[in-house]
Structure formats: structure tokens, C-alpha cells
């Protein structure tokens, strides 16, 4: 979908700085999430993802810069902002003495909107035991319960912070299916997802656009399709091993005898033509997945002999 730029962004962060003592957890971050998009927020552990999310939720105050959710300052319009978003954190905490059913009631009581059908459907799908205390749930079940409380509220913005880390593959798969199906179903053009994760491969198909953050700063922001078209690996085999081969816009990342592997982060088509001009025997290009783009962006490739 083409983002409608005239619309108020779901999230707008401008030059956000957040310090803990002398440490700058977030250091001049800017990003903008259009409504209806699924936005990936990728970074290593400690890159500043959770700090940024806590500023969105008014759990932390920015040291400098501004954060807007639906055009509102979460610190000044906390109730309004929180009524339109739902948050699933990495470590989910519920009142341990409450049962699953009581927890659902408790969460529903804070919400103007609460879809009982969605709640029942998801409780069934996840086979959550309604009369069990939350202290006796597994980590997977706790995350699933958090997802039910988030989706039944039908928020305009779903904020997921490392939602699938520590879960088994089946639970992860169901988690993502639920975000795609149950969450997006209601009003697909308006349901915005902001997901921070380092398990990027699982979310590959869901992500429209992403920002990679490192040391509290933005490293790369791109549309996912554009990123895969731009970042490519090119394999070329030559009749005789070229002593040195400098190709503009490409980096040699691997060399084995007559075979060279290039990494391209610009116009892959033009670079391929430039390599082809050196008359290789074979030449093949392959797009990088979002996870590979993440790794190659944060780690300067070394030439391995």
C-alpha cells in the first residue's frame, strides 16, 4: 500500500536522546511510521530498542527530542495514547494470583473496546486454561495471554518488543499467524504494527519497512522490497583467477580460487553489468534477506582467503 503522507503518522520520533546517567542509550534517533504499516525495529541487544519503546509508552521520559504517537505527546496525553495502542513486552508480567479468566477481565476493564469473539477465538486457538493461575503458565502461554489482551482491545497500534524470543518454534509460528490474521483482519489499512526483534527471519514477510538501530542511532531505514532489490550477493567464476578486481559499488567478501563473492548495497543491476564486463564464466545474483542485510550492515565484511 502506498503510505498516505498527509495522514498523521502512527509514530513519529525526532532526534530522540535518552540517557541513563552518563550512558546514552538512545542518541539522536528519528523515525516515522505511517498508519497501516508493519514496521520492523531491528538492533542487537542493548542497541536502544527497548528504551525507545519505553519512551513511546511514557514509561521513560526523553532526555531530549520528541516522541509522538498519533500526533500526541505520550507524556501529556497518556490516556488517549494508551487507549489506542497495545504493548506486548519481552518479559510478560501478570498478577500471579489471578487466573487467566480473571486476567482477561482485568485487562478488559481498562479498555473502551474489547472484542469478546476475538478473545474467545484466540483463547481456544492457544488452548489457554481459563481457570489456571498466571503464575502456573509457561513462558509461551504467558506471551500468548499477553497477545490476547493486546488484540482483543483492537488497538490502532500494536507494539511488540522482542515478542518471540525464548519461545518454541510452534508458538512463534502461531504468534505471527495471529498478528497477521486476527489483528490485521479488522481494519487492515489502519492496523499498525511496530515490532522490535533480532529474530528477523520470522518476521520477514510481515515487514513493510524497517529501521536498523545501533548504539542508539539509526543505521539504515528502508522499505523491505527495496532493501532486497538493493542488497545482493553476486557470485562470479572466472576462467583464470583475477589478481585484483576492483568493481565500483561492490565489495569482495569471499574469495575461493576462481570464485569471487561480491556484496552489493546499491544498484545491483549496474554492478552486475560491471562485473560481467570482466567476462566471468558464470555470474549469479541473490538478494540478501532482511536478516542478512542486518548482519552485513552492522558488521563490516572481511575478505576471507
Amino acid at each position, binding site marked *: *500500500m502506498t503510505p498516505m503522507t498527509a495522514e498523521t503518522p502512527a509514530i513519529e520520533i525526532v532526534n530522540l536522546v535518552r540517557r541513563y546517567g552518563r550512558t546514552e542509550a538512545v542518541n539522536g534517533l528519528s523515525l516515522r511510521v505511517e498508519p*497501516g504499516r*508493519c514496521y520492523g525495529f531491528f538492533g542487537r541487544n542493548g542497541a536502544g530498542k527497548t528504551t525507545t519503546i519505553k519512551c513511546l509508552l511514557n514509561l521513560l521520559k526523553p532526555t531530549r527530542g520528541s516522541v509522538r504517537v498519533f500526533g500526541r505527546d505520550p507524556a501529556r496525553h497518556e490516556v488517549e495514547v494508551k487507549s489506542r495502542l497495545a504493548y506486548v513486552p519481552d518479559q510478560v508480567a501478570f498478577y500471579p494470583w489471578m487466573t487467566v479468566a480473571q486476567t482477561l477481565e482485568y485487562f478488559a476493564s481498562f479498555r473502551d473496546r474489547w472484542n469478546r469473539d476475538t478473545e474467545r477465538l484466540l483463547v481456544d486457538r492457544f488452548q489457554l486454561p481459563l481457570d489456571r493461575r498466571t503464575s502456573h503458565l509457561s513462558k509461551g502461554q504467558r506471551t500468548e495471554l499477553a497477545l490476547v489482551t493486546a488484540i482483543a482491545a483492537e488497538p490502532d497500534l500494536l507494539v511488540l518488543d522482542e515478542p518471540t524470543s525464548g519461545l518454541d518454534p510452534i508458538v512463534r*509460528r502461531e504468534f*505471527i*499467524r495471529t498478528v*497477521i*490474521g486476527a489483528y*490485521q*483482519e479488522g481494519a*487492515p*489499512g489502519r492496523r499498525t504494527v511496530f515490532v522490535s526483534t533480532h529474530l528477523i527471519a*520470522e518476521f*520477514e*514477510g*510481515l*515487514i*513493510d519497512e524497517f529501521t536498523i538501530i545501533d548504539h542508539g542511532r539509526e543505521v539504515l531505514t528502508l522499505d*523491505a*522490497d527495496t532493501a*532486497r*532489490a538493493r542488497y*545482493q550477493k553476486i557470485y562470479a567464476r572466472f576462467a583464470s583467477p583475477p589478481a585484483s578486481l576492483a568493481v565500483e559499488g561492490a565489495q569482495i567478501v569471499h574469495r575461493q580460487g576462481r570464485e569471487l563473492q561480491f556484496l552489493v548495497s546499491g544498484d*545491483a543491476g549496474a554492478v*552486475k*553489468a560491471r562485473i*560481467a564486463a570482466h567476462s566471468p564464466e*558464470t*555470474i549469479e*545474483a*541473490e*538478494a*540478501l*534477506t*532482511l536478516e542478512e542485510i542486518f548482519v552485513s550492515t552492522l558488521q563490516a565484511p572481511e575478505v576471507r582467503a
Partner: protein
Amino acid sequence: MVFELNYKSGKPVYLQVVDQVKAAVASGAARPGDPLPSIRPLAEDLRVNRNTIAKAYGELESQGVIETVVGKGCFVTDQASPLRKDARTRLLTAEVDAAVVQAHHLQIARAEFLRLAEERFESFAKRRARASQG
């Protein structure tokens, strides 16, 4: 219709869905009147954004490959393209150009390329014939 996405192809995800539907129609795997999977289950199955499938179906509809029947879903049309012949030729020319460029870089000579094109037409004709028998 079985879809398979390849994130390493560098092709936009919605276009992969578009091309696979078109290939299924060209090979007879999907015939006029056949329904397409609904957006939500397909998106869940492929684990892609719902909007990606919606965009693909929108594109297929604007190209006249499928039509939406309100309340019933999307169906393969009988392939009377709404585009005029010269517009269709222009669209195909761009695709053929890309293949010619690719052939050059893969050192596939002209005669070999034309032989391959012949062979692919044959292959699709056979698949269509098999599909209409089955």
C-alpha cells in the same frame, strides 16, 4: 494453487504472488472461474503481511487476470484483457528485453535463446493440455 515465496529472488513479494497466479493461469493449473484463496488464510499460510496479498490481488484485477465478486471472493477471468494490443505488446517487450539482457550476461546466444523460448511455449502448451484432460 500453491504459492512459494523466495526472499532471495530480490523481486517484490507482492509481484511474486502476481507472477505465480499468472503462471498458474498460463499453464492451466488455474482455469477461468476458479476461485483464488481468500486473503487472510493465504497471508497466514505464507506468513506475509495481509496488505501484500491485497496489493497482489489488486494488481491482478487491474491487469484483468482475476475479478472480485462482492461477498464471494476473487476468481480467474476468461482472460479477455482490458488492455489494447499495442499496450500489451509494450508490456511484454519490457519483459523480453530483460530476458535478452540476462541471456547476454549468461552467455546464451541468440539461437539458443530462441530455441529455449520455443521449448517453453511447448512445455506450457503440454501442461495446459494435461490440465484440461484432468
